[in-house]
């Protein structure tokens, strides 16, 4: 294919604005997929994606399109993940494109991720082809939304394409616009081969399959390649492109998008953002922008039944094959036994992993309260990074603790500015500024500790704004804070899995709430169980779970024996699922209670 006839583009949108639906239409109209094979949201091929309606993994599809100039073009649609947790993956996908179709819902207008993704696209110098979608809906206001877009990026409102992805209206025009407005890939066909990895998946037969955008040169079938960052050298098992199924071909040319089946056994060896070169090319320089995976949120994952440890281990291994951003290592908790400390890109990522473990691997797992990574400076001048309160060294040896802060943008109708201000203030946010998007909507900008965002923040934001607010966030930097470890002692014994790191000003209140919550969820035992929250040696809150006095069936006669025995058996099974801390039985939910401390 002539390089000038290649167009590489992606679709960017706020969630639910119609990205997947539009992709479906493009595939259909270009005949990439037959009517018979058409199922909704073809690119979202993971069960969970379909259900959540969120694209978790990027895909790349090659389409052939005959334009009005009677020429045939090769259009490569690169689908990007739709959630901020995956910003880095999005940025790599964008780096593989020259253009971006910006989809905005004609009934909703611009939202948090519209902007976040747009800015990312502009950072990559992509040609923006704006679209207002869902014009079939009665409540659509395409002109207004087009005007919003003009105000935002200075593209004439008249050039914003009205589309109904659902009904196919305007999609032809959009395809034309992609051909005429998006520039062909640059790249030097005669230079040594270089390609950018923007995604990957694990295939049981072909090993790690990396999705690449060829930047320079040509790769021929069977030529050995090298992954620069991970320094792996392989002889590819297969080259090809997605149509949308994997379709082998004998070469990948400059500007093209396709895949290389590496045969590698772990996705860690083929990192998104890495550069692929020929194995014998020594002088080639790496493409810019590679970043190793940096998880932001950490939590302990424990099997609810101790004997499932190995199953959990296998499941994590398998998940990691397909998800390079998931990291984990074994962890032992006094309270919970053997498990893993896992790192995630964000809360949403954590939720997805948890759900996949439970659903795809049928595992019952207990997830401890999430933590961020703290940088601890010790008195002897060392800086250590910890991602679990349990790893915090003794108070007396700590010089200072720094925590990650985020820049967050909240998009909300003006009516909810008050509630948003209130809830962010409670979470130590620093207000930066406010900007009116139109008369009814504002963007509020804050700086906020990540630790304040990982527990229930999004849900609360949604409920404080009746679901209207949207949120975008990105890492800002580490800042020192007056942070302390809040320990929980049950029956005099510290329960490691319940410790949290909090700001000193909040320790008292959090401690009290935690203690009273635990008092509610820890069932009465045969003896009185004191629950204490402590900072260092100082107890800041306490309560007692009174000893159980009465637990006996009043009656057990001939007609009751089976039923009452079954009742006792159920009780007994319930107790087996509890975790023993010393001689106290603590139900699983207690460990989650840190997550939901009612205001």
């Amino acid at each position, binding site marked *: 294919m002539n390089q000038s006839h290649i167009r590489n583009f992606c679709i960017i949108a706020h969630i639910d604005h119609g990205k997947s639906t539009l992709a479906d239409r493009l595939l259909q109209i270009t005949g990439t997929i037959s009517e018979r094979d058409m199922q909704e949201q073809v690119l979202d091929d993971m069960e969970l994606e379909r259900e959540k309606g969120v694209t978790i993994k990027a895909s790349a599809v090659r389409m052939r399109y005959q334009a009005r100039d009677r020429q045939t073009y090769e259009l490569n649609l690169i689908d990007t993940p739709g959630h901020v947790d995956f910003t880095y993956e999005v940025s790599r996908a964008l780096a593989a494109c020259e253009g971006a179709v910006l989809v905005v819902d004609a009934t909703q207008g611009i939202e948090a991720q519209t902007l976040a993704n747009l800015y990312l696209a502009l950072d990559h110098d992509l040609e923006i082809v704006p679209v207002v979608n869902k014009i079939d809906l009665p409540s659509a206001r395409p002109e207004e939304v087009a005007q919003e877009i003009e105000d935002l990026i200075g593209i004439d409102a008249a050039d914003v394409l009205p589309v109904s992805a659902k009904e196919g209206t305007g999609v032809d025009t959009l395809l034309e616009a992609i051909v005429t407005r998006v520039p062909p890939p640059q790249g030097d066909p005669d230079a040594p081969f270089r390609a950018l990895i923007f995604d990957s998946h694990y295939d049981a037969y072909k090993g790690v399959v990396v999705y690449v955008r060829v930047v320079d040169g040509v790769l021929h079938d069977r030529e050995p390649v090298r992954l620069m960052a991970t320094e792996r050298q392989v002889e590819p098992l297969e080259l090809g492109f997605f149509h949308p199924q994997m379709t082998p071909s004998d070469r990948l040319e400059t500007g093209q998008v396709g895949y290389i089946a590496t045969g590698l056994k772990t996705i860690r060896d083929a990192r998104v953002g890495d550069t692929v070169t020929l194995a014998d090319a020594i002088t080639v320089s790496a493409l810019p922008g590679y970043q190793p995976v940096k998880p932001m949120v950490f939590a302990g994952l424990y099997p609810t039944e101790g004997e499932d440890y190995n199953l959990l281990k296998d499941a994590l291994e398998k998940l990691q094959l397909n998800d390079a951003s998931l990291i984990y290592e074994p962890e032992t908790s006094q309270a919970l036994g053997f498990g893993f400390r896992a790192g995630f890109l964000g809360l949403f990522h954590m939720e997805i992993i948890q759900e996949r473990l439970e659903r795809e691997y049928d595992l019952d797992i207990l997830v401890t309260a999430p933590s961020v990574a703290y940088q601890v400076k010790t008195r002897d001048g060392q800086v250590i990074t910890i991602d679990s309160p349990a790893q915090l060294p003794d108070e007396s040896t700590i010089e200072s603790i720094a925590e990650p802060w985020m820049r967050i943008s909240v998009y909300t109708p003006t009516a909810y500015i008050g509630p948003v201000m209130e809830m962010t203030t409670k979470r130590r946010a620093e207000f930066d500024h406010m900007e009116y998007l139109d008369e009814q909507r504002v963007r509020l900008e804050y700086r906020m500790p990540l630790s304040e965002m990982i527990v229930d923040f999004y849900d609360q934001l949604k409920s404080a704004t009746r679901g209207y607010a949207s949120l975008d966030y990105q890492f800002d930097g580490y800042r020192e804070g007056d942070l302390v470890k809040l320990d929980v002692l049950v029956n005099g014994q510290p329960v490691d899995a319940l410790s949290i790191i909090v700001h000193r000003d909040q320790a008292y209140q959090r401690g009290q709430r935690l203690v009273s919550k635990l008092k509610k969820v820890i069932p009465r035992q045969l003896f009185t169980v004191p629950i204490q929250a402590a900072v260092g040696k100082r107890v800041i809150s306490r309560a007692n779970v009174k000893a*159980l*006095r009465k637990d*006996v069936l009043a*009656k057990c006669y001939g007609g009751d024996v089976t039923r009452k025995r079954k009742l*006792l058996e159920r009780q007994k099974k319930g107790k087996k699922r509890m975790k023993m801390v010393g001689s106290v039985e603590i139900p699983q939910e207690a460990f989650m209670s840190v997550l939901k401390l009612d205001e």
Partner: protein
Amino acid sequence: MPIGLYLHIPFCRVRCTYCDFNTYAGLGRLHGPYADALAQEVRLLASRFPRPVGTLFLGGGTPTVLSIKLLRRVLAACFDTFAVEDDAEITSEANPGTVSLDYLRALRHLGVNRLSLGAQTFDRGELAMLGRVHDAEGVRLTVQRARAAGFDNLNLDLIYGLPGQTLTSWARTLEQAMALTPEHISLYCLTLEEGTPLRDRVLQGRLPAPDPDLAADMYELADDRLAREGYRQYEISNWSRPGYECAHNLVYWRNRPYLGAGAGAHSSIKGQRWWNVRPVQTYIDRVTAGGATPWPSPAAEDGEIIDRALEMGETMMLGLRLTREGVAEADFRRRFGLSLEEAYGDVIRELVNAGLLTWDQTRLRLTRRGRLLGNRVFARFLPC
């Protein structure tokens, strides 16, 4: 060894607000057909399990809503087909205020020699809350009539732990019960059973939820008070004058064989336990259907096999309810061929240390505290 025979009478005049027994109000037209079906099942059971009967118990429901004629028919079936021992304990439950002196005389005449009266409480407000058909006076009157009819073995059932009940009102109820000098007293802590109106009212917040700690206080108060009055506790919820323990119920707690006839009745014999269908009409239809009669009873709905491990567990779960005799080492060894130590040594030691059991190497029993925490003990002996 003689067995216990239980006969279920699933009828009541009205249904009490806390009741989840298999009983129905307003089914008067089925009394006759039911009594016939019951007699028929009794005859069948006797032919299949021809064992001497040491105790007989008419329970319900309210057995005394049946006419004497119908009761006679049922009891006659028992006496005709089972070898009922001469000194057999024959109990009938009865509701105060619903039985005349003549009725009680006739009942006594039928061979019934023990009467168990559901007094429940002597507090008017509490009686109303429970939806009982009688008042406190009705209980006194019925006790008098029972004595006059020749019953020298009377039980009163009382309930405590009621919504809104206080220690004082409970103490008053106890005094009034003891003033009637029954030979036997059962004290049941209220269980708010699924689907009962009383439970719904509590869940809706229209009645205060009972406080289990207060119920524990009530239990201990009663225990002290009854002891002073010369009643001996022999089971978690049962007290009697010496020698007046309920022989029929002892069969259950000693995990000995029994047969139950009637709608929803349970039987446990020869390593199997089964229970009959609960609805009255279904029961009648099943028993009176012609053709081959299924084993063990045409009315059986379902059942389970009691293997040795389960039998051991149940023997502990039931036997430990007996507060004085508990589980005797000798009995256990005779029955299962191993000692308690061999079977449960570790569990026993743990529960002894927790102050819930006492063990003098001949008997294993609940402590006073253990009596209120029985579930914690029983569960430990179950095989699951």
